[in-house]
C-alpha cells in the first residue's frame, strides 16, 4: 500500500493522508515526474511481462510435467530434474557451458585487454579495430564449413605448420578436439566484439591522465593497470554480464561443427546446455520430451542468473568521475 501511495500522489491527496507536508516539499517538476512514471513505464512493464516473464513461468510449470507437445501433460514433479542430474549427457553439457563461460571468458577478456593496450597507442587503430571486429560479423555456419577446409590433415593450417618444421601437427578435427576447437572459435569471434566495446569506454578517458602517468614513468602495462582498468571498469563490468548471458546462448556453432548430414546429433561430449535443450525438445527421430527440455533450460537460466548476480556484486565499484 505504501508503494501504491507513493506511486499515486493524487489518490493519496484525495484521501487526505498525513504525508501532505512531505509531498508538498517536492518540487513541481519532481511531482510531475512521479505522476508520469506509470503511464510511461506501464507499456514496457506489460510488454516485458507478456513476452518474457509469462513464458518463463510457463516453461517452469512445464518442467514439472512429462509432455510430448501434443498429448496431455503428465505430472512428474521434480523427477525431470532428478533424471536430468542423473544423465551424464546433461552433466557434461553443463560442464561445457561452464567451460565456455569461465575458460572462454577468461581467455576472451585477457586477449581483449591486451588488444586494448596495444590498440590505444597504435596508429591506424580504427582500421585495426574494424579488422578484429570482423569475425564477429561472420555467421557461425561459415566457421563450421571453413574449419573442414582449414584444419583438414592436408589443409592450409597444417601446411604452414609443416613449413615451420612441425612434422606431426594435432588432429584438429578429431572428435576429441571438437570442443576445444569450438571454444577457440568462440574466443576468436568474441574477442573483437568485446575489444570494440571496451575501446569505446577507453576512448572516453581523458588523454591527460595517460600523459600524467607517462610523466610518472608508467610503462604500457602500468598505464593499463592504473588508468585504463579503473576508469573503464563500468564498461568492463557490463561486458562481463553480456558475456555471461551470451555464453548460455551459444548453439549454432556446436551444431555446425559437430552436426553432419546423416548424424542424429553432434557428439554428446561437445554439447552445451542449449544443445541439450534443442536435442531433447526436437530429437530428429524420436518423441519430443518438452518437460525435460524446459527443465534443462530452467537449470541453465537459474545458473546463469545466479552467476550474473554474483558477478554484478563482485564487480561493483564506486563510480569514478573524470
Amino acid at each position, binding site marked *: 500500500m505504501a508503494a501504491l501511495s507513493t506511486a499515486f500522489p493524487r489518490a493519496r491527496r484525495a484521501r487526505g493522508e498525513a504525508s501532505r507536508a512531505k509531498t508538498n516539499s517536492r518540487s513541481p517538476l519532481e511531482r510531475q515526474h512521479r505522476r508520469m512514471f506509470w503511464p510511461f513505464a506501464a507499456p514496457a512493464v506489460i510488454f516485458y511481462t507478456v513476452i518474457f516473464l509469462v513464458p518463463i513461468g510457463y*516453461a517452469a510449470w512445464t518442467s514439472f510435467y512429462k509432455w510430448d507437445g501434443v498429448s496431455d501433460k503428465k505430472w512428474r514433479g521434480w523427477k525431470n530434474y532428478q533424471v536430468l542430474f542423473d544423465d551424464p549427457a546433461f552433466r557434461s553439457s553443463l560442464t561445457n557451458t561452464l567451460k565456455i563461460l569461465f575458460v572462454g571468458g577468461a581467455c576472451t577478456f585477457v586477449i581483449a585487454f591486451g588488444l586494448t593496450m596495444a590498440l590505444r597507442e597504435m596508429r591506424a587503430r580504427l582500421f585495426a579495430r574494424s579488422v578484429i571486429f570482423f569475425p564477429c560479423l561472420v555467421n557461425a*555456419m561459415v566457421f*563450421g564449413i571453413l574449419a573442414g577446409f582449414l584444419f583438414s590433415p592436408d589443409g592450409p593450417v597444417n601446411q604452414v605448420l609443416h613449413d615451420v618444421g612441425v612434422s606431426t601437427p594435432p588432429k584438429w578435427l*578429431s*572428435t576429441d578436439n571438437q570442443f576445444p576447437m569450438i571454444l577457440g572459435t568462440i574466443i576468436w569471434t568474441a574477442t573483437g566484439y568485446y575489444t570494440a566495446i571496451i575501446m569505446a569506454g577507453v576512448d572516453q578517458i581523458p588523454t591527460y591522465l595517460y600523459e600524467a602517468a607517462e610523466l610518472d614513468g608508467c610503462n604500457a602495462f602500468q598505464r593499463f593497470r592504473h588508468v585504463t582498468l579503473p576508469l573503464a571498469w563500468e564498461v568492463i563490468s557490463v561486458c562481463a554480464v553480456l558475456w555471461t548471458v551470451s555464453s548460455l546462448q551459444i548453439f549454432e556453432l556446436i551444431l555446425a561443427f559437430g552436426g553432419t548430414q546423416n548424424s542424429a546429433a553432434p*557428439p554428446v561430449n561437445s554439447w552445451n546446455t542449449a544443445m541439450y535443450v534443442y536435442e531433447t525438445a*526436437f530429437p530428429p*527421430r524420436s518423441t519430443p520430451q*518438452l518437460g525435460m527440455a524446459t527443465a534443462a533450460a530452467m537449470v541453465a537460466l537459474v545458473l546463469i542468473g545466479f552467476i550474473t548476480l554474483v558477478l554484478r556484486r563482485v564487480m561493483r565499484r564506486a563510480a569514478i568521475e573524470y
Partner: protein
Amino acid sequence: MTTTPRRLAAVGTAAVIAAAGLSACSSSSGSGSKDGFTYWSMWTAQEPQGQAIKKLFDQYTAETGVKVDVQFLGRDVNTRIVPAITANKAPDLWDQGSDVIYGSAASTGQALDLTPVLSMQVPGEGKTVGEIIPAKYNQALPKDSNGVQNWVIPYIVSSAEFFYNAADPDIKAAMPTPPATWADFIKVCDALKAKSKPCLASEGEDDWTNGLIFDYRLNAAGVNFADLTNDKTGAAWDNPAVLKAAQETDQLIAGHYVVPGYDATKTPAQETAWASGKDAFFMNGSWVTSETGKEVASTWKYGAMLPPGVTAPDSMTFGFTIPKKAKHADAAEKFIAWFVQQKNMAALASTADTLTTRTDVPAPADLTDVQKALDSSAVRLTFDGQSGDDVYTKVFAQNFLDFWHGKLAPEQFVAKVKATQVSYWKSQS
C-alpha cells in the same frame, strides 16, 4: 537425412519451446480452399525432389481443379509440425522420412490411419494403392501409439549399402564376384591394399554411416540392434555374437583398411575424396548417388552391395502422412491415390535420381543394384529403428566413435557401451 542448415533454421523455434512453451510456434494456416488442401513439404523448392513434386502438384491442380497450398519447408518441417498440431493449425498433408514422422506424430497417435487409402483406386491403373505399394515397407515400421500400422504412405525408398565404382579396374580386379562372407570381403580389402587403395571411405565424425557397418554385422550375426540397446540390464551385450560383430568391424580399423586421416576430417571431405576415386567402398544411404553425381568422372558406374551375410537390406522410406486434426483429410487422401500413379512416380525417379516404392518404376541407372536388394521379400530399418533415439545418441554414438577411431578394442567397446547403457536406463527409470 537432417541437414545442418535446416536444423539451424529451427533454432528460434527451439528457443521458444525452451523458454516459452508452445506459445508462438505455429506459423501457417491449416485451412485450405473449399475443395483444396494444404501441404507442407520436407523438400526445399530447389532440391530435385522438390522440383519434381512441385510439378506434380501443379499438374494435379490443372487436372482436377483442386487448389493446393504448397509450402516447401525443408527438413525443418518436423520441428514445426508438433506445435502446429498442438495449435490445431496443422497442414492437411505433409511428408518426411518415416522415422521422423513416427517420432514427431505417429508415436503420439497424431497421424491419421491411412489404411483406407490403401483401398483407393489409383486413377487409370485398375489397381489399389495397396496393390502397388509393397506392404513390407510399412510392416517394417513400428505401430503408432494406437496400434495403427499404416500411418504413412511411402513414395520414396532408400537403402544403405557399400557403394563403389563398378568401373574401377582396381575394384574389378580385387572383386571379380561379390564376396560371400565377411572374410571374403576382408580379402577384397587386402587386394585393394596391395594396390595402395584404401578399402573404405569414412566420414570419421559420423556415427551414423559408420555405425551402419556395425549394425549390419549385428544383423548378420542374428542380433537386433533395438533389442540390444533397449535391454535395461545390459546383459544383451554379453551375447558372443555381439562381440563377434564388434571384432569384424574392428578388422577394418585394425587392418588399416579405412582411408588414412578419416578421424580428423569433416564431412563431406571423405565423400568428395571417394567420388574422386581415392578409395573403394563407402557405406551410405542411396542418396549418395545424387549427392556425388556431379563430382564423379564420366567413366564412373555406381555399384552397391550389402555387406556379406546380411539377412535383409535396410529401408528408409519417405512418405505422405495426414495429421489426425487435418481439416481436409479427404482431399489429401485423394491426392495420395493420384500421386502414386506410375507416370508420376517415374517422373519423380528420373528427376530426382531416386528410388520410388513402386517396383514397376525402373530404378535410375545409378541405383539398379539397390533396387535389386530391395526386391527381397522383407526389409528392416536402419539400426532396427533405434537410430536417432535418445539411447542411440547418448549411449551408442559416442562410444562407437571412440571404437571406430581405434581408441577402444572390441572387448572394451562392448563393455563400455554395456556400462553406459545400464546407467542410462537406470537414470530413465
